């Protein structure tokens, strides 16, 4: 009996979507789910990586970049997103600017019981903040990222991309 290879999400898929949507800066704290994306981003001359010390900074740094005419995304883990509550409120939601936040969905799986509270509280947190989100788990989900950019621009609000690939191989290239 042969086992089919699980569909994977390659870092290039996210990078292609960033480029297509005119992203200039990625403001980030790397996490274990996105380390290959980080390596790939470092080699792109059109993209500037801004490493932050705590996730709350990423939303405020992004606000400054947007006011200055750039197109940032925040790339963080769901744990850090929850730490960032007041920054998301005051620097993203209240600012009236579009922003796409790419969030590593630590602990997520669709095949079993979710035991990691980081995953359990991720969607309730986004719902409480009134932030719409799209789940991206494999390459064929990539176009949802462009949908998120369009929605953020249309509504002048943050929109989240949840990268739910922890067990599928986002780290593969």
């Amino acid at each position: 009996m042969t086992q089919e290879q699980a569909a994977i999400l390659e870092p290039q898929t996210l990078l292609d979507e960033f480029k297509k949507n005119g992203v200039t800066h990625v403001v980030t704290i790397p996490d274990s789910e996105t380390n290959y994306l980080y390596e790939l981003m470092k080699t792109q001359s059109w993209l500037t990586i801004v490493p932050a010390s705590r996730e709350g900074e990423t939303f405020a740094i992004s606000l400054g970049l947007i006011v200055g005419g750039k197109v940032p995304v925040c790339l963080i883990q769901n744990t850090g997103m929850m730490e960032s509550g007041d920054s998301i409120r005051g620097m993203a939601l209240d600012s009236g600017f579009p922003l796409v936040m790419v969030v590593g969905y630590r602990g997520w799986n669709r095949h079993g019981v979710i035991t990691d509270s980081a995953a359990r509280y991720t969607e309730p947190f986004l719902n409480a903040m009134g932030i719409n989100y799209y789940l991206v788990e494999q390459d064929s989900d990539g176009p949802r990222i462009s949908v998120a950019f369009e929605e953020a621009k249309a509504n002048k609000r943050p929109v989240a991309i949840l990268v739910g690939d922890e067990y599928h191989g986002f780290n593969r290239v």
Partner: protein
Amino acid sequence: MFAAEDMFRSFAPHRKNSIVIVTGTCGRHWRDISDNEKRDAPLAGAMGQTTSASLGLALAQPDEKVVLFDSEGSLLMNMGILATIAGQKPNNFVHFLMDNECYATTGGQPVPNSQDIDYAGMAREAGYTAAYSFDNLEEFTNNVEKIMSEPGPVFVAMKMIPEVENEPIGRRQRRAVRPRVQAIRDLQESLGVTVSI
């Protein structure tokens, strides 16, 4: 310690075309002193994060000088930003810290380790290009021109006289401020930025 209003009056002639961002109770005096409100950026919104937003603006506009007047209560909430700023090395960024040793807006409660902490030392060790401390107006006034001409990121800690507010919030005098959306539009127009709110 010296008065924030006096400090701003001393700084104003050296502002030139800089973008200025202010925070905290001390920062309110700038609104009465600024002679170029279109370059005053309203980047407040979450305590501790105006510093981060100012960095973002400095990175987006590397040919513009960005000057932040931060407060110590805010910086304490987001101390990691010192490393973030030092890591980016924005040579167009000047980071003033107005340290009144307390949370003036909530009644004057002291901030942690208010009298012994060395903010300039922390910035220097984080990797800022230069860091200064001033506790009197004369010394500040004698150095501000040099500070404004130095490559950043430069950090300047200043001991400010607290202006403690003890009135209940509803009874405090409200100052007129420009609507944030308008202020950001004005700033973007002056920068030639076409993306807008």
